[in-house]
């Protein structure tokens, strides 16, 4: 194998251990995660533009988890985990909501609606998902009776970004009606 075919992990990526953060479901604490995202991105050597991308999508996902997943219940935590797998940075945001509508939200975000139409119909709630879908390299959504795991993937190597639109893996499982 030619040496230029080898994909080497950045040293910082090799030394990277999982980072777990738990915050109460209050938007005040969203900034804690947002700033952690900036730290992680810079640590991994992301360029300035990509640092901004990561910061924005993490902020939007955590805001969704607080407001829609946990209904801003300060007694329920939002979990955020940063880890590296197969040359990609994963940011997993988990909440306790039965985010069955997650799939529909993602599908709506995928639609290329004219922005003026969105505003005319007051469809700004999906703006966060619209941005996430366009800025991440991959997205996994797992929603079950226990809650939702929303994982955003970023390729560590510049140039690895897919040519085609990002792929989504959405798994939903209906909430147990005996719960709640």
């Amino acid at each position, binding site marked *: 194998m030619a040496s230029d075919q080898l994909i080497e992990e950045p040293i910082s990526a090799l030394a990277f251990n999982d980072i777990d953060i738990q915050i109460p479901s209050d938007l005040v604490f969203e900034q804690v995660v947002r700033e952690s995202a900036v730290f992680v991105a810079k640590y991994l050597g992301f360029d300035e*533009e990509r*640092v*901004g*991308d990561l910061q924005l999508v993490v902020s939007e996902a955590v805001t969704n988890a607080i407001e829609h997943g946990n209904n801003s219940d300060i007694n329920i935590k939002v979990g955020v985990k940063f880890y590296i797998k197969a040359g990609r940075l994963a940011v997993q945001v988990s909440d306790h909501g039965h985010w069955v509508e997650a799939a529909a939200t993602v599908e709506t975000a995928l639609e290329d609606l004219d*922005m003026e139409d969105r*505003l005319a119909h007051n469809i700004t709630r999906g*703006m*966060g998902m619209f*941005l996430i879908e*366009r800025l991440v390299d991959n997205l996994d959504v797992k929603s079950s009776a226990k809650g939702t795991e929303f994982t955003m993937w970023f390729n560590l190597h510049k140039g690895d970004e897919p040519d085609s639109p990002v792929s989504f893996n959405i798994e939903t499982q209906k909430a147990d009606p005996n719960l709640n």
Partner: protein
Amino acid sequence: MALKVEQGNEFTIIHIQNDSVDATSAREISGIKDRMNQTTIMDFGPVMFINSAGISALLKLVIEARKQGKKLYAVNVTAHHRKVFEMVDMLRYMPIAKMEDLMPLISA
């Protein structure tokens, strides 16, 4: 105050003074729609972070400017925000310019 407004006869320059444009500054941004002039410049100088609430407020403002027949320009925009503005069609209503290129418009 998140915004500083500089007003001339034919122009308005809106200097955003916070490092983030979010739900809080969105309220202030929506409040300046009546202070726009024929040429209005939004200066994003210190802005490091804009979230979806901020983007929605900016979009509403720039579309309002177009309805009023006013020209809006953005200056001092980072590469990340340029990309995001492009994604949400913002540049259709508010092109990014260099301040020095706009000088003839505001000193006329």
